[in-house]
Every structure is written in C-alpha cells, then in structure tokens.
C-alpha cells in the first residue's frame, strides 16, 4: 500500500474509533484487550474465498488478522475474467450488444442502456422519445430488482434470512415484466443501438402500474424487518465507514458515495436518456456507514418508483427506433459515455477506426472501482464485519472481472 492510501485508511479508522462504538462492540474490545498477550503474537494471514458464499461469487480476500481484528486486506480478482474488452474488438457493434448484459448480470438493462447510448453518441444519432421513455422505465425497474437482490443477500450475510425470501418473491414481478417485454428475465438484451427493438406489449402500462401499487407497501415491509431491528443496527451502524473525501479520492460512486454525504447522481449531474424530464430526489446519507448505505438504497427504490410512475403515465407516441444505418460504422473518433448504474458510474470508452468493429472498447465498471475501497473500509473491524462490508459495497464479480 502506498503512503497515500495508508493515510486515507488511518483517517477512516479514526472516524470509526472505539469511542463512538456501540455497547456490544465495546464489550468485544474489552475482551480483546484482556487477551492481548496471546493475540499480539499471533498475526494471522487467512484466505477468504474464492469459494465463499459471502463473497457473492468468486472473490478472494486475503485477510491479515490480529486475533479477530482486521489489519489489512488484499483482494484477488479475475476468476471470472472472460476478456469482454478483447471480445468487443472482434465483434461488430451490434454483435457485441448482448455481451454487455453478462457483466453486471443483476442489472443487465442498465449495461445495455450505457452501451447503446455510447454507440449512439459516436454515431451522432438520438433515440426517439418513446424509446427513451421505455428505456427509463425498464432501467429503473432493473435498479429496483438489483437493489432487491442486494438487500436479500446482504441481509442473509449478516444473519437475517427472511428478507431474502421477501425480496426474491417481489423481484419475480419485475422479471415477469421483462420476460413479457423481451422474452428474457435476466440477460435481457432489451435495447438496440438507436432505440428499442420491441414495441411495448398490450397491457405493459397496466403491468407496470400494477407492480407499483404492489411494491409500494413491500418496501415498508422490508423496513419493518430491518430498519429498527436491534441486531441489524448493531451489525451495520458505524461498520465500514468511509468519508466523502476518501470516497471521492478512491473513485467510489453510486449509493456508496451518496451514503457518505456526497449528493451526486449522474441522472441529475449529467442527465442522459429522458431523466431530465422527471422529478426525483437523490437520497444521501451522513455517516457513510453500512446502515446509511442501506437507507440510501431503500430510498432509491422509492425514488425509482416515482420515476417509473411519471414515465409510464406519459409515454409519448411515435417511433421506437432512430434513423440508424443497417451497417453500424461510426466515424473515426472516440467517445466516453457513462450512466448511473445501480452500483455506480458505468462508463464506456469507445475508439472507432471507421470500421464495423470497435477498435478499442473500455468498460469502466463501478463494482471494480468500488471494491478497491474495501481495504479502507474494513481496517480495524472484525472478520464478521468484512462480510457485511463486502455485501454493502454491492459488487457483482461478473462486472469486476469482465
């Protein structure tokens, strides 16, 4: 680790100092100081993963421990590396479109939106308004689905099993809409370069509205399970604290950044698709701990519902495909375009040499960059908290490794 990152981590440590810890945690500390003579001589390196259920896929974390306290971590990634960027250079723009769904497979629609918009920018084409609205509705539904999956697995990691069943039950309703719209539930390939391939099916608006009325009380239901649950509070409050300044320095984006008090969301800061036409709030936290990140994501689901409600009530009529040439050959040039994916800033940097295939395609994955902050967030915590922090960053290894 460099001196700079060490500085960052020591600052993070200070803010989660023993003085503002809960009673339960303080008792842990007392226990440890009592046993210090034994533990002090036992600096332990242990391996967590890659086949560990709490690492959400194949993430290997090497932990350096003093007793149960984490002194440092090192992430070993790449187990799911498929060379997506190399594949892109050997496929046409159209052929590469389905591949992006396999990066963050919990939010395939968002990946597709980012990719299609990036290529459209390079082509200097704009998708028609109707397509933009359909895109917003599906992307926001996907954000809810992604947050539900996060909530279920995150709570399960910490020991609350019930939310998993609730969230998966409700996520099913979103996947049904996807399936009716484009035939696929997860790797949807919902959008095309220039717009959408499919017109909405008969009853699409009704299905979406039904989902909104169905889902509104469900969020409250999740909250009754967790928000004031004593065990949940003990396991998440002041755990994995990262300050706003550290988060920016480490390039962290998405709900993790917002929970640290930085009010920044690409949908507002640099609006894309039709987001500038909707009214919604950016929820922010104050402490930058696991609990705040939980609250931020819960509120984001509500805000997504607000956006969907506005979008579905006024979908414009018209074409769903822009004027895109049959063979997609963007002019020579390069472009960077990013969107606010459920996990943070998802960017595509494309270099075109004027041929049908990208000369270079770089994906800026939010999970990869956010995961780098794990080390700063877990230093000084207990091993069990590492599991909580991995869950709260909300990584998808398919996107980390690409």
């Amino acid at each position, binding site marked *: *680790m*460099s001196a*700079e*990152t060490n500085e*960052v981590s020591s600052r993070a440590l200070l803010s989660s100092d023993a003085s503002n810890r809960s009673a339960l945690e303080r008792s842990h500390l007392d226990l440890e100081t009592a046993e210090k003579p034994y533990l002090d001589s036992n600096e332990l390196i242990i391996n967590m993963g890659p086949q560990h259920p709490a690492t959400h896929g194949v993430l290997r974390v090497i932990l350096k421990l003093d007793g149960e306290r984490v002194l440092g971590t090192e992430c070993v*990634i*790449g187990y799911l*590396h498929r*060379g997506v*960027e*190399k*594949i892109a*250079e*050997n496929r046409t723009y159209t052929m590469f479109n389905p591949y992006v769904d396999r990066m963050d497979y919990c939010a395939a629609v968002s990946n597709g939106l980012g990719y299609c918009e990036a290529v459209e*920018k*390079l*082509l*200097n*084409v704009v998708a028609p308004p109707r397509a933009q609205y359909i895109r917003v509705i599906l992307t926001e539904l996907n954000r809810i689905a992604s947050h539900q999956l996060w909530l279920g697995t995150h709570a399960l990691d910490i020991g609350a099993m019930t939310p998993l069943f609730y969230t998966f039950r409700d996520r099913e309703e979103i996947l049904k809409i996807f399936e009716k719209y484009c035939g696929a539930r997860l790797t949807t390939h919902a959008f095309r370069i220039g717009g959408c391939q499919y017109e909405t099916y008969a009853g699409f608006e009704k299905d979406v509205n039904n989902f909104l009325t169905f889902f509104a009380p469900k969020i409250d239901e999740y909250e009754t399970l967790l928000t004031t649950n004593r065990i949940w509070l003990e396991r998440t409050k002041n755990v994995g604290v990262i300050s706003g300044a550290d988060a*920016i*320095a*480490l*390039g*962290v984006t998405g709900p993790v950044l917002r929970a640290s008090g*930085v009010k*920044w969301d690409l949908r507002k*800061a*640099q609006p894309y698709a039709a987001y500038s036409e909707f009214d919604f709030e950016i929820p922010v936290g104050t402490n930058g701990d696991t609990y705040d990140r939980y609250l931020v994501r819960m509120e984001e689901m509500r805000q997504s519902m607000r956006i969907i409600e506005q979008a579905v009530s006024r979908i414009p009529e018209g074409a769903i495909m822009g*004027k*895109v*040439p049959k*063979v997609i*050959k*963007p*002019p*020579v*040039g*390069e*472009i*960077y375009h*990013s969107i606010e994916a459920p996990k943070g*800033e998802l*960017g595509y*940097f494309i*270099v075109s040499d*004027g041929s049908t295939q990208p*000369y*270079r395609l*770089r994906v*800026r994955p939010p999970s*990869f*960059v956010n995961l*780098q902050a794990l080390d700063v967030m877990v230093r000084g915590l207990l091993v069990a908290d590492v599991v909580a922090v991995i869950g709260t960053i909300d990584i998808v290894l398919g996107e980390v*490794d*690409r």
Partner: protein
Amino acid sequence: MAEEVKTPDPTPPLPDGEKKALVEKPTAEKPTASGEPAKPAAKPAAPAKPAGPVPLPWTSPMVEKYRSQYGSGLDPLTYLGQNYLAVDRSLIPDILRLLREEEQFDYCVDITAAHYPKREKQFDVIWILYSFPRNERVRVKTQIADGASIASSVSIWPTANWLEREVYDMFGIQFDGHPDLKRILLPDGWKGHPLRKDYGILQQDKEWVQINLGIESGQ
C-alpha cells in the same frame, strides 16, 4: 469501381448520420446498371463516414492558460462535445497534478490505453477525469512507445492503483512510482498482455494452463 470514384463527390457535404442514410439509397440502385452484386454496392457509402465530425480545437480560459505555459506540448481538442488534451508524455505528471490541484478535477474516473501497432509510439494512454465542483469531464491523452514507462498517478488519485494495474496487465505499460504494480485480472505467472493488437483472440498462455490447470488447453 465506377461508383467508388463517383460517390466521394456527393458525400463530403453530407456529414450527418441521417443524411448518410439517404446517400446509401442511390448507390443501392446503381448496381443493376453496372451489373455488380449487392454487397460491393454497399461499400461506396463507407468513404462518407470519415467525412463526419472531426476533432476541433478546444478553447477555454483554463486551456489558454496552460497553452501559453506549455506551448506545443499540449493540444486541446474537442470531439462531439467532449473535451480532451493531447499531451506530450514528458508533461503528463505536471498536467495531471495541475488538473487535480488547481482545476479541481478531483475524481479520476478511469485510466485506460489503446494499442496502435503501426505507429512509432504504439500506445495511447488515456485518463478520464471529472470535477465535482465544476461538473465537467476532461480526458488527457498521451502517446508512448512500446517498452516506455509513464508516471504513476496513484499519489494524485488513490483510485489509480487498480486502474493502472489493469492497464499494465492488459497492455504491459509500466507505471513509474506505482506502489505495487502487478497483474490484477490475469494470474501472476501469465505471459503476454491480451489487449495488445498482436495478441490473438484465441491466444493463451498454454504453458501456464497446462501446469496450473492440468489440462491440454483452455479452449
């Protein structure tokens, strides 16, 4: 062949994507006259694409300041509304630090590279920066030769740590002053850097695969 000579004449004044679609139609009708198959007929439309938008000079107070300071080592350009600085390799540490400290580009979005094997300086290294106070993006781009190294920016943005490791892993570009420059996505003992253009899509480090996985080939 006759069309290939003809088409460049009408195409340059029609730079937009929409207009190009219109150009394709007349060319599609022509092959019946010359008796050419449909596929080569689609080709004459291709020269129209490079005639599209080109990078234009980018002017802003910030850029003017650096321009007068660094002169020809700095080329500010804008393409499709996105600004970037083409910077000489030797100026990179200075420019990046100035952008961070004086211009408030506090968020390093991404660091990446592109390989151009036919060029003398084979690699483009690209920094994508964002400023929270200014809500503005800028890209910094430099060219370096194969085997040359570039200054690490981990001391400016800690997030550069993994991003630079990935560039090293995929392209073999060395970053001077990086605290722990090693592979990140590929295994440590792997030979070759897959995003170089001379690395085939089916290519792999067979020796590594045979020793570590105990199989003949990963394909």
